[in-house]
């Protein structure tokens, strides 16, 4: 509260005067008030206010749009990433569908059918070079998956060679890309594509080919689109992937196979011969490529992370993990985030308290000095703001390190033995010292602006009433400066809980904050989902603390200035 003089007319409470006024008002005639032109007063008031509101909104619109586009939208997107998990089902759609039938707890590797689905997904992903990304994603959950995917991605090209050779040996026509194009492409497309410059017109499937050769049609379509858009080649000139040969083999082997259309003789001949082809087991090929494919745990991990949205990142951020058996604690040596969150909050509190202890007397002196001197000293308080954060932090490095200024001085004074110089940096102490220094102005400024509005007459009144200096301070001055402490503490605490640069430079391993871990996941490990989950938790912690603060101290007890 500032000492605003409350004139008799500014009262809104139940003063005797207001009681009289209300009584007078109540005696007035009921019914809506009309404005001069006859419209109800309420409506014209609302109209006038709406116009005002729109004008106000237009004034802030540029900033609003700017903030929305450059700040809120990216943050929302980032937060969304903390639960987003489409990568598994996008990259391995057939495998994921096939795994639905598989029982993760059985302890057995899925059947051949699932391996066939994996072959199709893996081959396409490898062509599109998407398998490594998925490998890194799943590696967060099970180490080794990344290399497994990389190795198999290399090998998967050769899995279908048996069938490619078999078809080519059967009839050299299968080696001709145009044969495939005629069987699978529509007549119109074939007509246009013949002789056209690569990549030619967009591939079109023949109408009924999908009913005779469903898998081949699907995969050839994918192949054609891929080489046309990615490589700029024409399907008329490119031999299909071995995958397509494999698919054709499987189609021909289907129960009740029939075919009519171009090259009907060729296809039927192949169908006859196909039963004699060597039938390779994809399960064997995969396990041959990497024995981990025979490990049910790999499959369980794929199945567990198949849904499009996952709590996995959040569980990870609180040192839990999602396993086929449900949520479990991570192994003790992987539990780091709980400790980091605790440390972040503990150190932020320590920094906030240090700032209060150091800043309060400074703000008090500033607020009670004559204006001119106070302004001069205020420049000293603000000076750190005009220096680069990096420079200030590095300066602390120079001061605090073992061969640094403070240690040198202590050794020179003989207070500390040269052999046992104090370790004051790359630990929590260093971070707390440097951050207290950096955040101090954020405490002093609100404190000062609140203290400057406390009229000296309160102190005088208290002393005239017989209170000693200490009683005056503690019972009269201090309670009125609490809103400043509140504002400064919120500022400093929230700033420090998300601080990054200073702990990064002077924090070492024991003095780093959760934000340093977030930055690591954003820029080094590229695990954005986990970074987003950690960030969301941090945001939630701040909001909860803010709420608690409001309940305990009251947010209207926070004042940044007069």
């Amino acid at each position, binding site marked *: 509260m500032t*000492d605003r003089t*409350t004139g*008799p007319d500014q009262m809104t409470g139940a003063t005797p005067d207001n009681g009289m006024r209300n009584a007078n008002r109540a005696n007035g005639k009921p019914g809506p008030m009309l404005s001069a032109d006859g419209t109800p007063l309420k409506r014209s008031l609302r109209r006038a206010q709406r116009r005002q509101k729109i004008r106000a909104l237009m004034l802030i619109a540029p900033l609003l749009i700017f903030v929305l586009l450059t700040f809120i939208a990216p943050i929302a997107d980032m937060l969304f990433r903390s639960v987003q998990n489409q990568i598994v089902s996008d990259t391995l759609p057939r495998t994921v569908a096939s795994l639905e039938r598989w029982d993760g707890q059985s302890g057995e590797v899925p059947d051949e059918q699932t391996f066939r689905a994996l072959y199709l997904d893996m081959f396409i992903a490898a062509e599109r070079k998407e398998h490594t990304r998925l490998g890194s994603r799943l590696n967060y959950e099970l180490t080794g998956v990344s290399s497994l995917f990389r190795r198999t991605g290399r090998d998967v090209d050769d899995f279908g060679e048996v069938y490619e050779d078999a078809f080519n040996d059967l009839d050299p026509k299968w080696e001709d890309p145009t044969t495939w194009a005629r069987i699978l492409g529509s007549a119109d497309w074939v007509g246009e594509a013949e002789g056209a410059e690569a990549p030619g017109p967009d591939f079109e499937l023949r109408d009924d080919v999908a009913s005779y050769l469903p898998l081949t049609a699907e995969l050839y379509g994918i192949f054609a689109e891929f080489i046309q858009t990615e490589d700029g080649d024409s399907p008329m000139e490119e031999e299909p992937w071995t995958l397509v040969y494999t698919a054709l083999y499987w189609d021909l082997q289907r129960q009740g196979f029939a075919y009519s259309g171009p090259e009907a003789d060729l296809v039927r001949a192949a169908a006859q011969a196909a039963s004699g082809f060597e039938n390779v087991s994809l399960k064997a090929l995969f396990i041959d490529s990497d024995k981990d494919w025979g490990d049910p745990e790999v499959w369980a991990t794929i199945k567990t992370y198949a849904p499009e949205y996952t709590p996995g990142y959040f569980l990870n951020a609180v040192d839990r993990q999602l396993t086929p058996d449900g949520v479990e604690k991570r192994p003790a040596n992987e539990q780091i985030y709980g400790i980091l969150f605790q440390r972040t909050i503990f150190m932020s509190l320590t920094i906030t308290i240090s700032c209060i202890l150091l800043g309060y007397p400074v703000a008090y002196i500033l607020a009670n000095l004559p204006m001119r001197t106070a302004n001069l000293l205020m420049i000293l308080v603000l000076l750190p703001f005009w220096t680069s954060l990096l420079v200030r932090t590095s300066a602390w490095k120079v001061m605090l390190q073992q061969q640094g200024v403070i240690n040198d001085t202590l050794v020179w004074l003989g207070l500390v033995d040269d052999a046992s110089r104090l370790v004051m940096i790359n630990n929590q102490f260093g971070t707390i010292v440097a951050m207290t220094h950096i955040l101090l102005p954020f405490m002093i400024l609100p404190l000062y602006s609140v203290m400057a509005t406390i009229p000296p*007459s309160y102190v005088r*009144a208290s*002393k*005239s*009433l*017989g209170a000693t200096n200490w009683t*005056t301070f503690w019972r009269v001055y201090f309670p009125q400066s609490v809103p400043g402490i509140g504002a400064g503490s919120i500022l400093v605490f929230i700033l420090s809980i998300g601080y990054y640069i200073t702990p990064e430079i002077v924090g070492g391993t024991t003095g780093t904050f959760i934000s340093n871990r977030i930055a690591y996941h954003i820029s080094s490990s590229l695990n954005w989902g986990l970074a987003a989950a950690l960030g969301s938790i941090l945001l939630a912690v701040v909001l909860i603390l803010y709420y608690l603060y409001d309940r305990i101290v009251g947010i209207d007890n926070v004042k940044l200035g007069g």
Partner: protein
Amino acid sequence: MSDTTEGAFVEFSRVQKSYDGETLVVKDLNLTMPKGEFLTMLGPSGSGKTTCLMMLAGFETATHGEILLDGKPINNIPPHKRGIGMVFQNYALFPHMTVAENLSFPLEVRKIGKSDREAKVKRALDMVQMGAFGGRRPAQLSGGQQQRIALARALVFEPELVLMDEPLGALDKQLREHMQFEITNLAHSLGITTVYVTHDQTEALTMSDRVAVFDDGRIQQLAPPDQLYEAPQNSFVAQFIGENNTLTGTVTEVNGEFCKVKLDDGEVIDAKAVNIDGVGSKTQVSIRPERVEYNSERMAEGVHTIKAEVLEFIYMGDIFRTRLRVAGKDDFVIKTRNAPDQVRLKRGQQIEIGWLPSDCHALDA
């Protein structure tokens, strides 16, 4: 040290005060107050009234001189041990305490027991007719109510001396007049000694036993209200208190209590020699507007008459206010009571006005 005046409760003895070491804000202040007196410091803004009050309360130290309370010098006693009640202009009620807590504060710091405290707080609140407001916060009170609480807080610990620095400045006129009455009543019934600061002369005249008129860091005159009005000691006091006509001239003759003054236009008048330097010195002659008569039938024996021209005649209900040109000056004002037989003047009329030489004070120029 200085010799203390017998029976004085508050005494300023040759007190000087400078804030910057260059100018004296208070110059040689001498003042004695008996117990139970209501004394008002009256003066224009910046004349050093608050400074005097703060020196008495202990928030400023006198640069020179001595302040005595009940015969004892208090220069070295810290404010909280002086036991002086104070009412501030902005009331300075502690916003984070309720009204009752505000009142209880001075009792708590004096370590008075809880039941005693409650009784005293209640009595003080009843005294200012605010008994029902103990649980409120100051911000929930109107200006007048806050004023009463501030008064109650200054009195609750039963100080013998109370200082008030323009306590009614923030109130509207009606409330102010009412509070003036209440404050003087309280002060007299409790028998406390009061130093009251104001720049409002009506307030000073109606409330005080004595008024000290301040200007330029000095007391220009210290006297009861009627004396101040009727016998101003110098032209500042004459001008500052009430309405006043001044004519300038030169003293030509002094005989005892009276003197002759030759006005700037050559006319010679008789005046009371109050504050002149002798024959030949410049002087300002002061005459109150209501002591001038223009109706020859009502003029008393021995009045001095002089010619005048009516410039303006204003009907104000209870009185007529007439502006005249007298002795070459255009701002001579007279006030006459609106009696049934009173003559009303017209603009441009040439008349003769008169006053008694004893109502005409020759003061410093």
